[in-house]
């Protein structure tokens, strides 16, 4: 199950306003955006998780691990 665009947009704005650039992830059916990919600093992870979960969003899996960018997650809520 994927999130609707309003929760996604709200999470997107919160993250970007907080200095975390996001990439939008599309649903497997080729439809609308369903999640966000974002690199999160380890020390901020729990607080960001709490905010996203309050919105109805939650991380499902790590999508990349690059040097200097160790905690990139994809947020596909309500999985």
């Amino acid at each position, binding site marked *: 199950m994927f999130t609707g665009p*309003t929760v996604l947009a709200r999470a997107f704005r919160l993250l970007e306003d907080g200095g975390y650039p996001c990439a939008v992830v599309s649903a497997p059916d080729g439809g609308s955006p369903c999640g966000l990919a974002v690199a999160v600093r380890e020390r901020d992870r729990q607080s960001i998780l709490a905010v996203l979960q309050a919105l109805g969003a939650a991380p499902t899996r790590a999508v990349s691990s690059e040097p200097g960018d160790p905690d990139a997650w994809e947020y596909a809520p309500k999985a």
Partner: protein
Amino acid sequence: MIYLDNAATANPKAPGVGEAMVRCLQDYNANPGHGGYHLAVQATMAVFGARASLSRLLGVADPSRLVFTSGATAALNQAIRGSLPESGAHVICSAWEHNAVLRPLWDWRSRTGGTVTILPPRDGYPFHPDDLERAVRPDTALIVLNAASNVTGVLTPVVAVGEIARRHGIRFLVDGSQVAGHLALSLQDLPIDLWACPGHKGLLGPQGVGLLYIRPGIELQPLIVGGAGFDSSREEPPDEAPERYEAGTVNTPGILGLGAAAEYLLAQNPTVARSREITVLAALQEGLSRVHGVALFTAQDASRGVGVVSCRIAGWSSGRAAEVLDRQFGICVRAGLQCAPLAHQALGTAPEGTVRISIGPFTTEQDIDAVVRAIARLAEHPSNTVQLGSVPIA
């Protein structure tokens, strides 16, 4: 031209509304929430930005509880039809409701055998709270009241009614059509469950877009189901608001126009704006009250009303008076029943109705002087003594 029909639709709109709509068609012309490419995401974010602005304006912490509709009528239909069972229930409303409330109720009643109690005016009140309390039954499923009458502008004691509704565990829907944009609001702090309003009246946005606030925890049966742009393999509509109630493509230009209007209103001082409305309304009431032959139907104290005054002019039908005000004086007002037939029965002005004059934030003292002078001229010259165009203007 002097426009005094702001209770029907605001004219002019807020600065920036038209530009926002054009910019939408030029820059965000994709389907919001229905695509992952960059332009669709831009449109999605723009719609969310408008929703967030309106949430700030209306005092709603969670923008997802603010649903975009095609207008107040659609919002009221969603709230009423989505709340009521298909058999055996009871609804309470007042004699002051608009047909956007009454007709969905009559339709529901005829289909289901449900019952509707209409609270009558009493003791100078639009309705008496004691009558409301007495009307409550074990099967009462919904109370629907406007926040202010579109005929008289008189404000409804929403908080007092909401407390009664809460005490009895009854869902409370408010038709905020004449109040949104006029009063500073914090919907989430009011004892209400649902609030419907248009975007094109006091909110100063374009026609074709309205809002339904749904308190967290309140669920409605969606009135329209269809594509949501996500979760397409499910047979059911999405569970989450607002998409559960926004099937299909939303009115993106209208929403962004309304968002621009919300930003304009957020930049105003609501206390100053309301004070100005009261001052202009009081001037209109006072001016008309001095005209011999004019009967007024409006809030006794301007601070207890929004910018609406209804009147009858001796010797004139309301329709004929409005026609002459338009053609000879260039003043646009609304005649007739204003889609509120029971209100006019209560006032004793049915079936002909009244001349309704409704101000907006851009109405000037000169506009008020002009309409008072024009109505004074009409009152001096009963309609059966004049031909159109022959009422002396000066």
